């Protein structure tokens, strides 16, 4: 299970924080400070993995730097490090498509939209979507609906088709 997705910039300022199990604000900040300290001390050209004891002995942390930002995912042993690395890729790709050429400021000013995107990819700590075009489609639907509540064709619930 994924425990947290964090985006911080190279000065340690949080840009996006999403914990999949609740952490009090102080604890969140402490975690971010610790992670930032660890990431700063890591050399270049080393692995993207850090064994991390934030959430217990078996949690790992995968990070990836994109320009001025660190993207960080913390997860337990039921996930695969390499796959999570690609998941971050999907996330950033999606951001890039949504904000056409994304930068740090886009994330700062639109973090509600960034959250929407993240929610389409990861739900309840599990990866539910790996295709950036599908994510964008869903997010577009949502923003169209937000702009014009009548634009979406209403779908009748049908329970008959099931079972």
């Amino acid at each position, binding site marked *: 299970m994924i425990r947290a997705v964090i985006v911080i910039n190279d000065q340690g300022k949080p840009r996006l924080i999403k914990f999949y199990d609740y952490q009090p604000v102080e604890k969140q900040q402490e975690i971010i400070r610790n992670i930032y300290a660890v990431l700063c001390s890591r050399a270049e050209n080393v692995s993207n993995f850090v064994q991390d004891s934030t959430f217990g002995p078996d949690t790992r942390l995968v990070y990836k730097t994109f320009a001025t930002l660190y993207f960080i995912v913390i997860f337990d042993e039921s996930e695969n490090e390499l796959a999570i690395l690609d998941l971050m890729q999907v996330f950033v790709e999606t951001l890039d498509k949504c904000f056409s050429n994304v930068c740090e400021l886009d994330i700062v000013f639109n973090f509600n939209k960034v959250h929407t995107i993240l929610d389409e990819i990861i739900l309840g700590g599990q990866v539910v*979507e790996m295709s950036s075009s599908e994510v964008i489609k869903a997010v577009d639907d949502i923003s169209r609906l937000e702009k014009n509540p009548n634009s979406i064709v209403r*779908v009748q619930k049908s329970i008959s088709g099931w079972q």
Partner: protein
Amino acid sequence: MLALKQLHDQESKNDKKRRLHSSCAGHFIKSHNSNLEQLKTIGRELAMGSQGGFGQSKEFLDLVKSIGEARSKSEEDRIVLREIETLKRRINEPDIPKRKMKEYIIRLVYIEMLGHDASFGYIHAVKMTHDDSVLLKRTGYLAVTLFLNEDHDLIILIVNTIQKDLRSDNYLVVCAALNACCKLINEETIPAVLQQVVELLGHQKEAVRKKAVMALHSFHHKSPSSVNHLISNFRKKLADNDPGVMGATLFPLYDLITIDVNPHKDLVASFVNILKQVAERRLPKTYDYHQTPAPFIQIKLLKILALLGSGDKKSSEQMYTVIGDIMRKSDTASNIGNAILYECICCISSIQPSPKLLETAADAIANFLKSDSHNLKYMGIDALGRLIRISPDIAEQHQLAVIDCLEDPDDTLKRKTFELLYKMTKSSNVEVIVDRMIDYMISINDNHYKTETASRCVELAEQFAPSNHWFIQTMNKVFQHAGDLVNPKVAHNLMRLIAEGFGEDDDTADSQLRLSAVESYLKIVDEPKLPSAFLQVICWVLGEYGTADGKYSASYISGKLCDVAEAHSTDDIVKGYAVTALMKVYCFERAAGRKTSLLPECQSLLEELSASHSSDLQQRAYEFRAILDLDTNAIENIMPLDASCEDIEIDKNLSFLDDYVQKSIEQGAEPYIPESERSGTLNISKIRNHNSYEHSTHSLRFEAYEVPKPVVPTNIPTTVTYPTDLVPVTVSEPSYQPSVQPTWPLVPVSDAGSGSVSGSSELKLRLDGVQKKWGKPTYSSGASSSASNFESNRTMVNGAPQPDTVISKPHAPRQSHVEVSEEKQKLAASLFGGTTSRSERKQSGGATGHSKVSRITNPGEDKVRPATVTAVVQPPPPDLLDLGEPVADTSGYSSTVDPFKQLEGLLDLSQDVNAASASASAAATTGATASNDPDLLSLYSGIDTVGNQNLTSMNGSVNPTKRTTSLTKGPNLKDALDKDALVRQMGVNPTSQNPNLFSDLLG
């Protein structure tokens, strides 16, 4: 416009506008013309100005900007605090336009992200979820999921909205509500939405079905019992038409299978089939990621298969083909392809081994390790660690790669490699590996990991130590550098080990071990900054064995111990150990018939401690002083030589008191009533009632209240027996009530007393149940052959590698084209030298050790000193049983919790067994409870209280005979009815909430 310009300047200054293109993310970098990009940036900023920037107001823009410009954390805090003040004021103004409100909420989220408290605005976020506008509603949900935890008080205000939204005919609203369900619904509120979520599993839109599955999964995660009856739904949804929904069901199924494999064995064929279809690209193209079909689904399926196939030949066989296919097809050039490959290796190493697959896995690992990417090396090392459990030989061909990883600057990789080494340690390479681990342990700062490494070193050293000397040296190093981090149990183990020796009957080896320990400790003890735990071990060993060999004089050892106490004057625990050790040294000298006098520094230490603030130290000092006046015979019994491993017999029934009790009863005292019978039904039913009450108020009811029904007594005899049977207990013995009352306080005391008895039986050296790390698990068999094996391995480790066994054929080709330093080769040889497996080594180690078990079962075999012998001592019994007023200071002492004693409990008693055996003897003679509490004086005080209490209960006016018969528990129908009536009287009726309550009570 000016502000805009400034913002632009500032951005270019801070280079915040750098695009998020990673150098390693080649496949999505768009090669923009830099001019174009500049234009675009400017254009965007223009747009920002016109509509408030990214859709936000200028205020928010300014906030972000000023925070970005803040030079220090305190400046940032000031800005945020000002913002909080503004928001607090504004957010409570009447008639805020909704759009404005939405922005306030977003600003709240922002300031909370920066680590400031935004709780004053939570309620507004909750209100926003009620809004009709989808935009506002979603903002509300977002804020609420970020702000609140599932147990927050405000959650209850959202449940209703979620219920409404789940019913919405707009599927996006439903999705938003389901998202919120995953995060916000807690155990209590699950019933409120459960039905709706289950219905949504059949929704027309696959996105909704998927999210409904995830919501159910999160419910299962939070409270398995509330959705247990719905597990079949997960299995049904596995056959959903939409691959996304099917993929989502894998998460709950994975969790369920992790908990218990067996109920899901029948799904093996389905999973294999699905995996096959995925791998054969039967899924729609949209599920591909970089030409790899649905990687996360594949990975999850492989993880599930690994669980299902573990130790199950039949299931495993079904998987071989598909795993082989996937491995063959996997794209080793892409990251995700390697992720799947790695997962295949994990699966192969978990299921019933297949030689062919193992071979493929080994090849894949080789490729990982050969790669230049640190990520792949890391995965390779991890995979290797998994595979060597099945085929231990595989490590050998990768030895140089492993050593490279060990010396890699990447700390993560290094740690992973140490993990691997830990897994492949055997007696032939233990010295090299543990030495390296200790060096690494010294170099790391992370306390958590340091502790782990230290305990691993200890574990390996205990398991594979080639010699006493090495073992003691290694332990010294570990303790010196991480003494305060390691588990206190480790210190205890070390003491026990030194006390018990290796386990062979050979006493000379044992005394050699002790001597070498004493010698090394005497060398080390003067060093500054030794950790407390290590000093405790040192003091104990010096006290117990310092003078045993006659090599060191008592005064020398005493001097050292006094130095320790002096140098660590702030550490009461160490001082306590030192004083007790001094006492032992003195006693052993006296027992040996030598004329001894206390060193002056020892005298002054005693004087100092007699006035110590710590009652424990004071007590030890007084004990020591008391011992000084005793004769040799008594001393010998109080402090028997080398008796720390002896068992202490405890007479739990206190049979030696029988005469006394009998006499008292004859003289008219009341017999003692066991606590269980004394407290009777009343007590128990109270507790039950309390529980059930809690249970019924705990969960919220969301369904409407039922129409109240008249209570129809289902059991007529109940109401009849109520007045007849219950009353005698509570009413017809009015004299009983007050007489019980005074005994009440005794219940906890006697409880504690019994607790201490059981506790003490735990505390004593229980060698039978304890896992033996030091002794080798296998013994006797193959002793001679493996012993020679052992010898050869050791020479290999210590000396230069023996060419014939070490760097032989498998590495020859590698050597031919890779220039490998001699040093590395040596290291490789010492790490991977032997080809014998770990289990063989264990055996070889066992060759030196005679069965430990026999020693454990016959503790008195070689040290004939049965505890009963000690019963000779005759400490003055009368004032112990003189149950009048206990001596003031003793009772004071016994009432306070002594942290030292607690620690001793952790460290085990071997240290105090001398004292304990003496006290047990005291107990035997004085006839109080058989507590072998390590502390002599506290034991006495314990006796005082217990004795008191026994007496009170004997003298107490409790008249038990009637009660014991009427209130015994059991399946007796009459009793059951009594209880039922009582329960009703307490106001609890059986409801659907607590159907088990009565079945419990009524048997």
